[in-house]
């Protein structure tokens, strides 16, 4: 199996790398990329604050956390359920080291100290969980990371000295920088957009870097990669560290979005939700998790109204999400993106009359 099979576009050819690097970079962005960028940048002009803050802001944050899962699962072959806990860990650290309503716990460090330290601690947590999880393979990884995630949940719920137990921390606010109140909808939207784009590009870049290629090689055939002299364990743990980085950023943004963080943020339900988001969007491309997150947030926000307007019981939206997830997993292992691609290849096939090269997965 070719290494780049599942990453989308063509690899960068090395000779032109030195001079035309940036033009090549821009040249690689497809038309839909420009359209999407323009749409996202202009969105606050015509959308209401609710839409950009509660729908798109939330979706981008969840998308970043799901992206870190997608990176590990799609490129590394390790389905880690601990990413939501890593995010929550970063959110907790910002609350503990910075300012919150619980003044007897929060240390009140300035933002330029507490945010980097929070990210570092969350990355350390992600790395340690990864180091435990990579001792096992495949399906065991899911179980072990699920167990670690629930241990984190129970620990934060029981610990009152550091994590303030059941109630968690309230009134978390982003720092006022450059005279902008980042709590407002529009600045917060652009802040999230910036970090979401950055993490998307980072994953996109890393997946083509030597490290990312080695990781995909390890996913496809660990034994051969190990025979070639790659340190499998180190690569896998490094992947966890990298994925923890933007999960941590997303966690901080999430705690600012909600203004609070509590054990429920990383309960078993949300942990599974992140997996659902990533799978529904598709685990093969970094854009998948964002699509999944948008679908999830839209369902979460409007399913109740839709169900009620159809004359059904509004309480059953969890059933709707579960059934939708089941259908997608049942019929399309690659999520919504997989459905879209299959439809596209189907159209191409019927147009040309000739069967093109098939993807291989039916």
């Amino acid at each position, binding site marked *: 199996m070719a290494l780049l099979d599942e990453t989308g576009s063509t690899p960068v050819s090395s000779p032109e790398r030195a001079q035309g690097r940036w033009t090549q970079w821009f040249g690689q962005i497809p038309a839909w990329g420009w359209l999407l960028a323009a749409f996202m940048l202009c969105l606050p002009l015509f959308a209401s604050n609710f839409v950009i803050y509660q729908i798109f802001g939330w979706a981008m944050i969840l998308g970043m956390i799901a992206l870190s899962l997608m990176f590990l699962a799609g490129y590394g072959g390790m389905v880690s359920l601990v990413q939501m806990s890593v995010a929550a860990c970063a959110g907790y650290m910002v609350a503990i080291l910075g300012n919150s309503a619980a003044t007897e716990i929060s240390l009140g460090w300035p933002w330029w100290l507490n945010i980097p330290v929070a990210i570092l601690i969350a990355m350390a947590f992600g790395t340690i969980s990864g180091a435990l999880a990579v001792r096992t393979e495949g399906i065991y990884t899911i179980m072990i990371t699920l167990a670690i995630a629930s241990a984190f949940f129970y620990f934060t719920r029981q610990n009152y000295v550091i994590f303030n137990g059941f109630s968690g921390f309230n009134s978390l606010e982003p720092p006022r920088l450059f005279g902008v109140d980042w709590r407002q909808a529009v600045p917060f939207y652009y802040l999230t957009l910036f970090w979401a784009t950055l993490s998307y590009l980072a994953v996109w870049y890393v997946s083509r870097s030597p490290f990312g290629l080695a990781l995909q090689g390890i996913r496809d055939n660990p034994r051969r990669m190990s025979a070639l002299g790659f340190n499998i364990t180190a690569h896998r743990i490094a992947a966890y560290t990298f994925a923890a980085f933007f999960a941590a950023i997303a966690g901080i943004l999430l705690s600012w979005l909600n203004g609070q963080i509590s054990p429920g943020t990383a309960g078993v339900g949300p942990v599974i939700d992140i997996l*659902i988001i990533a799978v529904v969007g598709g685990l093969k491309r970094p854009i998948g998790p964002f699509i999944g997150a948008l679908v999830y947030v839209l369902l979460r926000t409007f399913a109740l109204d839709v169900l009620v307007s159809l004359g059904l019981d509004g309480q059953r939206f969890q059933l709707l999400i579960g059934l939708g997830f089941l259908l997608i997993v049942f019929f399309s292992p690659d999520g919504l993106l997989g459905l879209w691609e299959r439809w596209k290849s189907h159209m191409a096939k019927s147009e040309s009359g000739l069967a093109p090269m098939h993807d291989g997965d039916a």
Partner: protein
Amino acid sequence: MIRFYERHPIWSLVILIAVIFLVWLVFSPWPPGFVDVFGRKKIFLNALFNGITLGGLYFLVASGFTLIFGLMRNVNLAHGSLYLLGGYIGYEIADWTGSWLLSFIIAFLAVAAVGVILQVVVFRRMEGEDLRQTLVTIGISIVIADLMLWIWGGDFYQILTPEWLSGPVMLPLVTAVKSSGETVYLKYPTVRLVILLGAVVIGVGMWLLLNRTRIGMLVRAGVDDRDMLSATGVRIQLVFVAVFAFGAGLAGLAGVVGGTFQSLAPGEDTRFLLASLVVVIVGGMGSIPGAALGAVIIGLAEQFGSVYMPTYSVVLTFLIMVLVLAFRPQGLLSMR
């Protein structure tokens, strides 16, 4: 046993001393200085017995999980939902007919039937696709959880213990000696002892079934090499369906047990799913003795944890899991 002694003489000595100390702790009245350090003996004994009975319950849930995993490599994350479903069905039957024993049988059969449907409709279609199976079972558990919430609501249910089992039984274990010289014996709920006995009987029965019968031979052969087994002409799909039904039925049975000495409510499904995950990770995937050992360890850790370090009792079980993973990633009693 002798081979273990020959290979690890020092460890055997340590284990022997620990066992003797434990027996002494259980059977003799404690000297006063001891009570100051460890608290009253009654609390210790209660935690011990609760831990072992809880371990029995965990064993019932986890053995089905580990059996299904061992044979088919299916990680059935809907196992907790099957547990809760069995509990609710058992409650309805016990409520309707008033027969506690009947509720076990019906719950076992009903949940086993659900297991058959799961195996035929879901798992057979996705053989060998680990991740997809896991994801589908997550979806199923969400759907079942919401359906159960729809039908039974968010209330707590408890299955009533029958007359002949309610009330405590006197055990010949001294908890304390009063100043008047009168000895006090431990009282313990009969139903819990009966359930523990039932779990032990089921465990031993399962071991005999697996190791002494033809069906057990097929299952063991399937665990080792299922392609080879089907090549010899065994209709392996039938074995799969039977094992899946049995494992699911055990979860349903455990639901009735759990509904009797604890309670049934939404959220119990994930709790027991996590418990069985931890149990099989500690004990070793796919191993029935491993599930028994893991269940007792986790049950004891939970109960002793809640007595001696109340805040972190849940964390203690995960700590055990992490330690096992760090030093013996394949589990304590795993073959591989």
